[in-house]
């Protein structure tokens, strides 16, 4: 998604000026943006706290500003700067975290971001964008660019099945309908699940939804999804994020506020590092039980559709 994002920023810069800060990351990816933006592209160095506050100051001076790093360095190290300098000052700084979840695999847990959007969604006015597919990235960036709220963009790896036509980017999309459980996935994990669901028998496969914008998507759950849950079908949420502060908890609460309680709820989420061993993104997904095989096996075991 990163190269797609780079192209999107290059196009956006031709239309409206903005500044782009990177925390010394983007090698073999952001060079075209650097070359296109000239002095508006700033390598802020290995100093993420300063980078976020500088971005807030630049935004306050009147220039739209994006701040980029890999996901854990973008949100965790400078958390107070995001909270105080961006959010409390109500400045629409756009923060980009590349490689959300376990995307950096065997680079190790310091490079993972499995609690990022849960932490950030607790901040005043913060919006979170989690594109599921490469095709989502440019519309997400353009939406963020027009929004007056602080925002966080969690980039990952596009896992779209080759033959799938991606519907237009929205907070919620039904990727494929099915008569089985209702499965809501956050971000790129949806692509990996979709690959498996597409070859299942329609009457038993899950109805697979993808959630890409929070908190709006948490508040505005599509009525067909709500109705499906209300009808008694198993409801499941899959996300490459810890349970605490994740979409699963928030969706359950949102449904409860509507008086809707799932007959059965399954939450597939990151659990951290239970074995103390490390590997690829696929390895960590498997350990957490959020890989497609684990998710679909557990859903099948529920006996749904009832």
């Amino acid at each position: 998604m990163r190269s797609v994002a780079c192209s999107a920023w290059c196009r956006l810069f031709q239309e409206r000026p903005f500044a782009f800060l990177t925390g010394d990351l983007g090698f073999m990816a952001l060079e075209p943006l650097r070359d296109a933006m000239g002095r508006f592209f700033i390598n802020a160095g290995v100093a993420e706290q300063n980078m976020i506050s500088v971005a807030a100051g630049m935004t306050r001076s009147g220039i739209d500003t994006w701040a980029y790093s890999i996901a854990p360095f973008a949100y965790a190290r400078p958390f107070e700067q995001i909270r105080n300098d961006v959010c409390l000052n109500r400045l629409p700084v756009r923060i980009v975290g590349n490689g959300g979840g376990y995307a950096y695999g065997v680079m190790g847990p310091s490079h993972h971001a499995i609690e990022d959007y849960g932490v950030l969604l607790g901040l005043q006015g913060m919006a979170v964008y989690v594109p599921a597919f490469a095709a989502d990235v440019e519309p997400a960036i353009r939406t963020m660019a027009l929004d007056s709220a602080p925002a966080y963009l969690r980039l990952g790896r596009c896992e779209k099945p080759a033959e799938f036509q991606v519907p237009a980017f929205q907070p919620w999309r039904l990727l494929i309908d099915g008569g089985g459980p209702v499965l809501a996935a956050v971000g790129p994990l949806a692509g990996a699940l979709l690959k498996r669901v597409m070859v299942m028998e329609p009457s038993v496969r899950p109805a697979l939804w993808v959630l890409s914008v929070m908190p709006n998507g948490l508040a505005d759950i599509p009525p067909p999804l709500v109705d499906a849950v209300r009808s008694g079908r198993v409801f499941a949420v899959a996300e490459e994020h810890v349970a605490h502060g994740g979409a699963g908890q928030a969706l359950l609460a949102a449904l409860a506020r509507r008086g809707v309680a799932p007959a059965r709820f399954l939450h597939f989420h990151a659990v951290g590092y239970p074995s103390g061993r490390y590997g690829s993104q696929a390895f960590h997904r498997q350990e957490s039980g959020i890989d497609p095989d684990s998710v679909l096996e557990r859903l099948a075991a529920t006996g749904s559709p009832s």
Partner: protein
Amino acid sequence: MSNFQSEFENLARVVRRRLLRMHHESGVGHIGGNLSCLDALLCLHHAVLKESDVFVLSKGHAVGALYATLWSRGRLSDDDLRKFHGENTQLAAHPVAGWMPEIVFATGSLGHGLSLSAGLALGKRLQGQEGQVYCVCSDGEWQEGSTWEALIFAHHHQLDNLTVLVDVNGLQGFGATSDVASMADLQTRIAAFGVEVVGIDGHDAEAICTAARPGVGQPRFVLMRTVKGRGVSFMENRMEWHYLPLDDRQYEQALAEQEPL
């Protein structure tokens, strides 16, 4: 004492009285660090800042000095100051943003203001905007790593539209700066990064107004030697006045020391 200095000292006494009254009526402290930087804030807001300039208070716990200064400029009223530290107020104990143009950022957690100011300065430059960014920070604030990150950044980008005034009062929340984490000589350490640095008496109005100017090709740092609790004899250089409020007797004594020259 020159006419300018005597006029300034009388202004400082008037504003100090108002600051003391505001803190006393609210029953709150943080007075010592307000008084150490009050002269600098008065100089900046009465004699230095132009319309295109921006002021950032990095040591947010000294917002009482900023409120009193803005009162002296007619930007806040007595009614406003009575809301200091109250309920349903915008005059919180650390600055909150978005309610008056002179307070551009919510600050209060130390180590943020210099980066914010550097961002403002770089943003101004990128957009071809005139004006200087003036930032007042504390000396204890230099124990925050982010402040040094900001120094590196400001120097690297040669932000000569950034002027930083450091309130070197030598006392922090729970000890003398030299005892807690000595960085003496701070001026030499900052200068080692290649920025423009000057040291002055932080209560000499002429010196402040002269020193608070743009650097030449680099950000300019003004290390102000100040006295915590300046102008109130029993507060001066006493660490406890970082936090303590005034009782009635102390308040009367403090006011008595602010008679015009």
